[in-house]
């Protein structure tokens, strides 16, 4: 082992062990338009979508299939370019924010690298951008082979510390998805983009995951844009719920959730929760009925 590798490992850990908690960034979409071509004909995915998310806000986007909510998420994250309108992440474009690693992306599937241990998957995104042939870039571990302390702390928080050295295939689907969440948080980016991260899980696992997500998120000031199909999920997690309508994809309504934080399981039985869920459901139904038959 070269002294150089020792040095860089030590420095990174010093940085990494500072408590997580990046200030969230604000997201502004201004008259955003996006269309795709399907069999040569243009299909409007997003028509004139304007939306702003405050720094540190947890916003859910809910809507029927084909309403463009995933497209919206990808435009915010700089993975897709809008055909019209403007998107700002604080003072930068999505592309610049992406280059500066300001997004943590959580897809619907765990999307873990099967040859990396859980701990090495968690630190993967931090390694991106470093030259992969350098030893220090291949592994974020310290000189005695231990994973970074903050990554281990996050894993411990979701009950996965004993599995840090396991391979993904040794974990259940729910556990893998928790690793995927931890990976996004471990990046320490100010904005988290989640594309139906719990959709593939069973109802019981899903229920527990909501509160684990809230617990980890509660210690950060991260901005979250959370795409979902589930009304209760959207209400219990969010500060605001954005309802979208399809064909063309557009914002149908905004619901401010007044439940206090931290959110608890009991709140799901409260009248306030039911009232919010009811209003979101009504908005969804209206957007559904407004469609052409």
């Amino acid at each position, binding site marked *: 082992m070269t002294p150089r590798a020792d040095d860089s490992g030590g420095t990174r850990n010093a940085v990494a062990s500072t408590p997580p908690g990046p200030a969230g960034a604000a997201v502004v979409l201004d008259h955003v338009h996006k269309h795709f071509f399907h069999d040569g004909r243009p299909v409007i995915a997003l028509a004139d979508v304007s939306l702003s998310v405050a720094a540190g806000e947890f916003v859910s986007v809910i809507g029927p299939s084909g309403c463009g909510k995933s497209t919206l998420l990808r435009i915010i994250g700089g*993975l897709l370019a809008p055909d019209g309108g403007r998107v700002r992440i604080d003072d930068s474009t999505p592309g610049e924010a992406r280059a500066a690693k300001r997004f943590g992306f959580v897809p619907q599937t765990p999307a873990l690298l099967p040859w990396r241990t859980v701990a090495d998957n968690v630190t993967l995104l931090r390694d991106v951008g470093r030259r992969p042939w350098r030893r220090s870039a291949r592994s974020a571990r310290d000189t005695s082979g231990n994973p970074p302390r903050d990554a281990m702390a996050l894993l411990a928080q979701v009950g996965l510390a004993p599995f840090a*050295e396991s391979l993904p295939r*040794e974990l259940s689907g729910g556990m893998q998805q928790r690793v995927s969440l931890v990976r996004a948080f471990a990046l320490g980016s100010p904005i988290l983009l989640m594309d139906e991260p719990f959709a593939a899980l069973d109802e019981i696992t899903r229920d527990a995951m909501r509160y684990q997500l809230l617990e980890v998120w509660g210690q950060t000031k991260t901005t979250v844009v959370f795409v979902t199909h589930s009304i209760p999920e959207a209400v219990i997690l969010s500060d605001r719920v954005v309802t979208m309508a399809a064909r063309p994809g557009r914002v149908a309504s905004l619901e401010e959730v007044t439940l206090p934080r931290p959110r608890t399981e009991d709140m799901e039985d409260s009248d306030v929760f039911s009232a919010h869920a009811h209003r979101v459901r009504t908005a969804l139904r209206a957007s559904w009925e407004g469609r052409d038959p």
Partner: protein
Amino acid sequence: MSGHRALSSPRADTAPVELADLRSSGVGWPRRVARSVLPGIAAFAVLFGGWEFGVRYTHISATELVAPSAIFRELWRAPGFFASNAWVTLQEAFWGFLVAFAVSIAAAVLVVHSKVMERALSPVVVMFQVTPIFALAVPLVVWLGLGPQPKIIMAALVTFVPLFTNATVGFRAIDPATYEVMRSVNASRSEIFLRLRVPHALPYLLAATRVCTGLALVGAVVAELFDSSAGLGNVMTVAQAHLETNVLWAAIFTLILLGVVLVGVVTLVQNRLLRWARVGTDETG
């Protein structure tokens, strides 16, 4: 290994992990090895036993078909002779494989990253695929003359298509969601190649290598049949000219043995490198 640390932890309460534990702890390794090897040995015993019986107790003459015992006696008589010729063939096959490997990886990288290159190279690959490559042995020898070159080229030609096809499929076998996660932190093409595509291609490339060890040997031998001063193909040609059927068969057996050993080596490498890709959790430790 890593899995076992998880197994001993108090939180190992999930089904997949626990099942693996039960399955691998039940039987000791000598029994497991015996269980995996014995059926193969039995099959060979039946095959060679039947062959030996057929030659001894029917009216096939020894010049037409040699009994396995005579073949083994021939091998035993001059092991150095067969080994040194096998070494020549092995080197030609190895270099041929290496050339094909390098070219196919380079071609696959181009095809995966560029639609134009894909459209340009696909017909060329199809051409190689439909060409009766062994028929090229004679022109190759005429063109490149004596020496190892025509054999190396031949081994490279027969292994190119399987290697290229598997490299292309492997480089493309990445999970779209993982690709998107990598893109979300602005991973470059080269980084996605090194961190995602190469590891994903590894199982494909090793499977192709397994197939190609045999192919490369056959390619080298076929070229040797037509013109060479050494190698197992040369041994076969000379033996045939002198009607030494024993020697001919001994050379074939040497080739088989060589192939079996090589495939075994590749399998070991596969098991070592692809623990993460194994479907069942049957690791030994």
